[in-house]
């Protein structure tokens, strides 16, 4: 990968990203939420986040909002990740290491099929 450092480069990248986003009409908003309380971070939430971002980069997935939440009181299930597809109810996943995160991105975020074995029933 060539070194990209200047903000001039960023201008071009911005234009490209904007065009691609307009071409791909995403069906509603896609939200990925990683829990990052002390418990989440200690359990590996940063690796989970990194895996989500790597997936977006490598598979060129446009239109995903990635955000965070604090401790939700299920510390033993950390790292926790939540996925919201459009108007559908929120799906909460537990024990989401880097591999599971990649699986969720592929199956659920991209193809709409929740990864059943990691869902936490609340």
């Amino acid at each position: 990968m060539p070194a990209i450092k200047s903000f001039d480069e960023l201008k071009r990248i911005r234009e490209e990203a904007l065009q691609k986003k307009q071409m791909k009409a995403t069906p509603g908003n896609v939200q990925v939420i990683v829990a990052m309380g002390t418990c989440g971070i200690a359990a590996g939430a940063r690796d989970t986040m990194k895996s989500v971002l790597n997936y977006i980069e490598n598979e060129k997935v446009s239109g995903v909002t990635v955000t965070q939440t604090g401790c939700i009181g299920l510390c033993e299930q950390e790292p926790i990740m939540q996925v919201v597809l459009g108007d559908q109810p929120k799906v909460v996943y537990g024990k989401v290491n880097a591999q599971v995160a990649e699986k969720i991105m592929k199956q659920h975020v991209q193809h709409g099929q929740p990864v059943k074995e990691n869902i936490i029933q609340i």
Partner: protein
Amino acid sequence: MREIALHLLDIAENSAAAASKNVSIQVHEDLLRDRLTACVIDNGRGMDAETARQVQDPFYTTRTTRKVGLGIPLLKLAAEQADGSFSLQSEPGKGTRVEAEFRHSNIDRMPLGDLSSTFLTMLIAHPEIDWTFMYQVTEKDSQSRDFVFESAELKSELQDVSLTEPEVLTFVRGLLEEGIEAAALQTVAE
């Protein structure tokens, strides 16, 4: 926590939760003085003296989901175990400054860890905050290098385009990784 960078992520999360608009994360590896200093400074809602004292106690938290709050006590312990020190200054309405200092050569000092991942995670998780990331290195011969990143500049260039668009992510990740690698210590392998 296995890395100082993970502690910083955790402490900076407190800053975000305190409704800060500006947060600065500063790391200085100083081989000349044999110190590693890590600092998180925010302009969030701050704490009164009593609360600032209590948050250093593991059995105190402002959260309601559980009765323990471990973030600050864990960092304090990590610093003190590595011949270092910990300080927390806060003023209601003004903000909070958390500083942890370690002896760089101390065998119990945890590794600095993946600073660029911590920075990238904070940028993505809290795009509403104006971040300043500073990483400074002073070698034994007193030569000094640093890397400074300010998210406000990035935000004004990007305007309405999200940081999580793949092309933008590649750019920002590259910027952070290359900047930190260029400034990092060459004499010490972690």
